[in-house]
């Protein structure tokens, strides 16, 4: 336990808790106030469907803190790892899939995109000898792990864990698809109201 706690406390993360009612219907007042944290304070007292509490930056002790910033929702999280060594990717895939299962994430797809070989043909000698060449190739192997329906806090936890244990010589590309509500300023048109007012005044 101490060993694992030591590892967990290297980067202090904080938990987010989210509240949702059992009804599916979204109340019209629910906002995606992701970018306006100041105005969420009052809203979050109401348990609105799909309103999530966001993450805060942790305190010195590795305790779980809950903030009022709403949590992001990701419909899909795609992790693509690339390396020159296929065996390393096999082991990394085992690690990443086991970590996802332990954290309770749904693995949509785990597959291997076809490898990419880049070949070069260069002159073997420094000077002349055009007929004698040497050929090199660089093989890039890929592995893709797709996770569906994950919250912002969990994705941060999972990605940080995965990225800290990324082996040498492996690169990663993460594609996140976040889903959001239609913001307030796009709910109702401004100009139709104005034109109605003009007609009324006339």
């Amino acid at each position, binding site marked *: 336990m101490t060993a694992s706690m030591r590892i967990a406390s290297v980067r202090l993360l904080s938990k987010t808790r989210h509240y*949702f009612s059992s009804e599916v219907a979204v109340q019209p007042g629910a906002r995606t106030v992701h970018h306006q944290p100041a105005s969420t304070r009052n809203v979050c007292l109401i348990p609105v469907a799909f309103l999530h509490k966001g993450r805060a930056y942790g305190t010195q002790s590795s305790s779980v803190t809950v903030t009022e910033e709403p949590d992001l929702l990701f419909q899909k999280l795609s992790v693509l790892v690339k390396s020159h060594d296929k065996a390393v990717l096999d082991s990394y895939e085992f690690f990443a899939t086991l970590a996802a299962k332990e954290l309770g994430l749904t693995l949509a797809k785990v597959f291997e995109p076809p490898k990419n070989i880049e070949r070069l043909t260069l002159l073997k000698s420094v000077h002349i000898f055009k007929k004698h060449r040497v050929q090199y190739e660089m093989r890039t192997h890929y592995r893709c792990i797709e996770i569906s329906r994950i919250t912002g806090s969990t994705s941060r936890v999972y990605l940080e864990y995965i990225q800290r244990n990324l082996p040498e010589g492996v690169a990663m590309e993460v594609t996140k698809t976040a889903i959001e509500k239609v913001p307030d300023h796009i709910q109702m048109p401004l100009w139709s109201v104005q034109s109605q007012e003009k007609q009324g005044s006339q």
Partner: protein
Amino acid sequence: MAASTFCPALLPLLRINCKFNGVYTRISLNRRAAYSLGLTASNGVERQGLPERGNQGQRRQRRAVEPRTERMTVDQDWTAVYPTAASFKPNSVPLPVRMGYPVKRGVPPAKKGNLELIKIPNFLHLTPEAIKKHCEALKPFCTEWPAALDSDAKCEEHFPIQVESKAYVSAGPSLRNPNARIITLTVKLSSLNLDEHARKKLIRLSGERYNKDTDTLTITTDSCPMKQQNYDYAMYLLTVLYHESWKTEAWEKEKTRADMEEYVWEDSPSQKNILETLLRMRPLGEKEEEGEVREELLGRVEVQEYKDSVTKLKNEGETETNMQQYKEAVKKLLNI
């Protein structure tokens, strides 16, 4: 330790012990012997080499200590041996691993002093047990996905806007990747509050960014240097498109038939032709007002059917069903 390196005088004693203590001692001695078979030879070599170095050196030569593997039990806590990523240490890993290209009529080299094993990244710190321990410690920081959003359709219904972004992790001279600033915003127009005119205008304004088949508007922004700025710019573009599409400019009244996105039957040559034809088909002698006759004719069911079939043909193109419908409508109209 194997008995062979120590005083041979002790050997009979050990053998006597074996007899007394039974099989267990023998097995343990054999196991230790198996690990240290290679070591004893090398220890002997080192021991012989040491005195030749000379006692003149001020630094005392280190004695070779037994490897840690000797003292490892089968049920030890492996997470304590390799808690974090570390290079392969042959004296800490109790596995008889061999790696490398074998010499002729030989076997791959053993783990001691094997550079190949040190070079490749190992996952000794990420055994399933270790991963489970880490995940147990990380679980308090995770949140659950709302149970009500269990299908894609529901996600689409309540959260219509999708924002896609990429992040990159790689080693190199710089940690930054300029492609990480790109944001792609996707939204279905059916989820926005638009009327007919606003919808058509928005489609015109967005141009290439609108996909007719899936009814999605895709806005990709990469003009700002930071991801947050690009996201704000994408939302700004969406807002502007939405509000501009609701506006009706003065020059929009000059929209001609050529500008129309869809075929409209009213005031079209087809309508005029059919009305003329039907008027001529009427028996002579009945002098009624033009307007009333027209409305009466337009109100007939056959004329409506004809209108539907022509509109379908023009908008959707010529298909079997459309042509059949047109044929039936014409036959009914002209009483064939």
